[in-house]
């Protein structure tokens, strides 16, 4: 009797084991899709992980998976798509408020600083990282920077004071050049506008060439060589107007360069301090 019972138990256990094995090998079952998607995510194959997470969501509703989709987009630098996925979850506390942090990061990447400010007004007090990112947004070109340095620096600790203070100084006093001033300077002294806009050698060459053709034109008029005189006048005028226009253009380029360098410096600093989730989330470790 005992043996029969054991036999029945064994058959039942084997059937269950068999079913388990079959289920485990159905690679498109929800649990397996999620496992596979996590593996793709951790191997930085974000495009495919999004597809797999989306397939999973068709069968099972999961906030964590929605956030993971958002992060996949974030790591692919598709900030708009990331924002769309993360925004509905910002009040969700899963993965240590990853949705809120990721959403702020997407807004920063997307340069949507106004929305970032709105989020900061709501969550800034509870989440210092959000307040810091919002303060950083204020440093970006074309943004209104707080005139009170103490008020600005209150978001940061003593360890960051030196570098952040440096960024604040640069943002509040950017070394811009005025295009109008550059053009006027070159109109009076050819090449002076270029020197003012930071292109010293270009300015000196412009001055020399314009001066040379002016002299050649004058000398040929004086010697009654009409054809060559008008030729040199034409070339000289071309160089002169090019220098005036070029000086204004150089000032615009200089300003864009100042903004670009500052933005790059600021973003690399931000990447270094890593206020938010890094490249490898906890579930990948």
């Amino acid at each position: 009797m005992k043996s029969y019972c054991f036999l029945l138990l064994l058959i039942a256990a084997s059937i269950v084991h068999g079913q388990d094995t079959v289920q485990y090998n159905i690679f498109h079952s929800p649990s397996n899709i999620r496992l596979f998607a996590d593996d793709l995510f951790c191997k930085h194959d974000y495009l495919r992980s999004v597809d797999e997470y989306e397939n999973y969501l068709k069968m099972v509703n999961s906030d964590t998976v929605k956030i993971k989709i958002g992060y996949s987009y974030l790591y692919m630098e598709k900030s708009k798509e990331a924002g769309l996925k993360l925004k509905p979850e910002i009040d969700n506390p899963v993965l240590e408020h990853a949705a809120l942090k990721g959403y702020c990061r997407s807004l920063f990447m997307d340069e949507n600083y106004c929305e970032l400010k709105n989020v900061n007004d709501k969550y800034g007090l509870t989440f210092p990282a959000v307040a810091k990112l919002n303060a950083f947004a204020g440093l970006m070109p074309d943004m209104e920077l707080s005139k009170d340095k103490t008020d600005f620096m209150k978001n940061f600790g003593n360890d960051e004071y030196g570098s952040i203070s440096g960024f604040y100084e640069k943002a509040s006093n950017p070394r811009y050049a005025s295009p109008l001033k550059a053009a006027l300077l070159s109109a009076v002294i050819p090449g002076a506008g270029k020197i003012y806009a930071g292109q010293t050698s270009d300015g000196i060459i412009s001055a020399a060439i314009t001066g040379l053709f002016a002299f050649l034109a004058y000398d040929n008029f004086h010697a009654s060589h009409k054809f060559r005189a008008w030729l040199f006048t034409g070339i000289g005028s071309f160089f002169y107007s090019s220098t005036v226009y070029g000086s204004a253009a150089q000032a615009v380029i200089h300003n864009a360069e100042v903004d670009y360098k500052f933005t790059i410096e600021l973003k690399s600093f931000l990447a270094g301090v890593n206020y938010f989730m890094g490249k490898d989330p906890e579930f990948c470790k």
Partner: protein
Amino acid sequence: MKKDTAILLLFIVLLGKAETRAQDELARQYEYACLLMQKGNYYDAVTEFKRLLFFDMRNKYKFVANSRLGECYKQGAKYADAVFYLNVALQNSPGNKERLIMKKEIIKVNILRRSFDNALQQIYELEKDTTSGFAEEADYWRGWTYIFEDDWEKAAECFSKKQDWQELKKICVETDKHKYSVTMAKLLSVFLPGSGQFYTGNYMSGIMSVGWNFLWGYISVNSLIENRVFDGLMTANFLLLRFYLGNVQNAEKFAENRNLEITNKALNYLQNNFNGEKP
């Protein structure tokens, strides 16, 4: 005793059955991924091969799935990924035959991604390996490397070594014959402005070059004759020299563009009409 034996037998049979079903699932997954690949749906095929690898705990498909992944990435022109997966497949090759196939595939991808030094080095190493049996076709792949490197003369030389490769040799010789000499175009324009443009068939540009150079040359010389040396030097420096150098550079650019058209046409022909093995 009989009962115990029966129980043991049943246990083994059921366990075996479960294992077989697991293997069947993997085989089905492999077939599905291959089907996607055959249909040219390489993106989804890559996903399914990766899924197969993820669930293949015993690494039964490690070689074949990685080699297929390499092939899919190659078809999608993701050559760096292709080389990565082909190398994984190479490390997991079950035998010498498969190892040779993988090494050849890596060479082909290196040719396609224009990593010519790597391709030539790998051809050389495989040729030296007497057990591989690759020596016979080494020059064939060298020839293809030179084709992609735009050295059609060297490619023709490689293909001339075997009778079976004469079709390729003929294409290479013809292409090389039709190509323009960049040095010749430049030299012609140095000695007679505009003639390099005429040589490459850009007649309008040639006429313009002749005109501008003649005009500024005339004004410069005229100034010198009239003892206006400074005027002459300035005209020559700022106008004649500018148009003269521009004319030489232009001739070079035209010759290079023409050559690009000719080589693209030849490569296009090879891609669509040549039936032999190609990268």
